[in-house]
């Protein structure tokens, strides 16, 4: 267009090259990771909903934590999972990890659970277990609703789940008191809601990456979902509720500054746009 024409400083504000934006953003994040400036956090209603859902699971029933995340979203889903596991152990609720959509992520969740379990002296197979990755999404859920031990078969370590002490009396979906889906993959919650929560009325709560969350607010509003952790913020809030400030809080510091950086960029672009169009008008 007018690439060769000399640009006014206002026009230049509108066309900051991408590379500068990328470099500055990287610099802001690295700076905050190395020297974080922490800020206070207050839990939202959606986060409290997850916490309350865990608290209110009847004692005889099991919680399923469907950890459908892997390394790619670990920065958000890792702290979420850790805080949720803390909440389970603190309220003496037994839980089973499983994965429908992340064959390579379940190991990461297992490591996490193992580390947290040590802090509470919780034994594998008694207070918690890991059903491992189960292939087949809807087919798994449809079958599981009718017969859990048969559908799950073996746990993460290859042992038959029916032999785990905590699985005694766990037959079908009515043995489950809550399902918590932790994921960055869209679509899996629809299976849980469409095939389990909607069909059998099993309570459902979730933890999503911030990008997915907006799509699921309608389920929160329609009460199909008891609560929802939204991204790293949800993780940090949950950490606060369980009294274990950790990685989530540190990440929020970097988040704050990166957000401010992007907001500043948008403001600069608009200031440039307004001033450029004003000077244009004056010239005419």
């Amino acid at each position, binding site marked *: 267009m007018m690439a060769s024409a000399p640009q006014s400083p206002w026009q230049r504000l509108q066309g900051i090259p*991408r590379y500068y934006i990328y470099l500055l953003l990287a610099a802001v994040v690295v700076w905050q990771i190395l020297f974080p400036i922490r800020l206070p956090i207050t839990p939202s209603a959606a986060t409290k909903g997850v916490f309350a859902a865990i608290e209110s699971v009847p004692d005889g029933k099991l919680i399923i934590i469907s950890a459908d995340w892997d390394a*790619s979203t670990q920065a958000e889903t890792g702290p979420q999972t850790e805080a949720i596991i803390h909440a389970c152990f603190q309220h003496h609720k037994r839980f089973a990890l499983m994965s429908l959509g992340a064959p390579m992520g379940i190991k990461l969740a297992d490591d996490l659970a193992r580390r947290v379990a040590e802090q509470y002296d919780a034994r594998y197979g008694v207070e918690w277990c890991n059903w491992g990755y189960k292939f087949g999404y809807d087919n798994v859920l449809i079958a599981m609703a009718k017969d859990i031990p048969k559908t799950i078969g073996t746990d993460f370590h290859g042992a038959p789940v029916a032999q785990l002490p905590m699985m005694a009396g766990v037959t079908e979906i009515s043995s489950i008191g809550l399902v918590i889906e932790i994921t*960055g*993959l*869209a679509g899996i919650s629809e299976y849980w809601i*469409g095939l389990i*929560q*909607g*069909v*059998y*009325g099993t309570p459902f709560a979730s933890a999503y990456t911030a*990008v*997915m969350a*907006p*799509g699921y607010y309608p389920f929160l509003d329609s*009460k*199909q979902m008891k609560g929802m952790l939204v991204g790293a913020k949800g993780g940090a809030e949950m950490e606060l509720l369980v009294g274990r400030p950790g990685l989530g809080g540190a990440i929020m510091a970097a988040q704050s500054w990166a957000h401010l950086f992007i907001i500043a960029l948008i403001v600069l672009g608009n200031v440039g746009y307004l001033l450029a169009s004003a000077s244009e008008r004056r010239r005419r």
Partner: protein
Amino acid sequence: MGSLEHANWFMRVLFGAMCAIIVVSVLLAQRGRQMFIRRIPGLSAIEEAVGRATEMGRPIFFSPGLWGISIVTLQALAILAYVVRLAATRLTRIIVGVCDPTIFPVAEESVREAYASAGRPEGFRPEDVRFVSDQQFAYALGSVGIMSREQVATSFFFGMFFAEALILSENGRALGALQVAGCPDPVQIPFFIATCDYVVIGDEYYAASAYLTREPTLTGSLVGQDIVKAVVLALIVLGVGLATWYGGAASEARNVLFKLLAKGA
């Protein structure tokens, strides 16, 4: 919450009525009844986008999204077939990057078919329908590679997209491609709006084939859809009216509605 494992009588009736409305509307249109469709800017742009690639003598890239054989992807392939027919008559090359192995044979087949029906069966090159990867981000990176190595002039993103949407479209933009996108899931639409020249929002996605081809079956179906939407709208207005009249809490009227809509057999 109720149980929706199977339908209740109300759902059976409602579903039957919805299907009947759409099918009758299709049949009426096939018998020659004239039907109106308003302008949808994002869809009007498809022809312009193909024309640009023709002018520049460079290829088009088309992505049918991440999902396998599903209703969403079949609609994407219907749009693809239209784009191929346009491109074929103008001797413009079109490269399709496929993500799901089950959709690969279907995509290949419908592209070949589209070339044949445009009267240029010899224009079809099997290597232009490519399986890229079934892994979301390998697909994204592979598709960006294809777009930049082939120097595409235009790219279309129609189908189910997730996080890779912005990787594809931001790189396409940096290449200077004219981009048109459509996705039924609202979550990725903001990013397409930020990076693409034209975006097809929500239900416009399913209106696309009717709008583009003006085939009676499809326009009839679109009119039927509108009537069904009006029925749903009426249902909502009725529900809101009842809730307002009887109050929000657990009233008798609300329980009746709850049983009908949120509790199956």
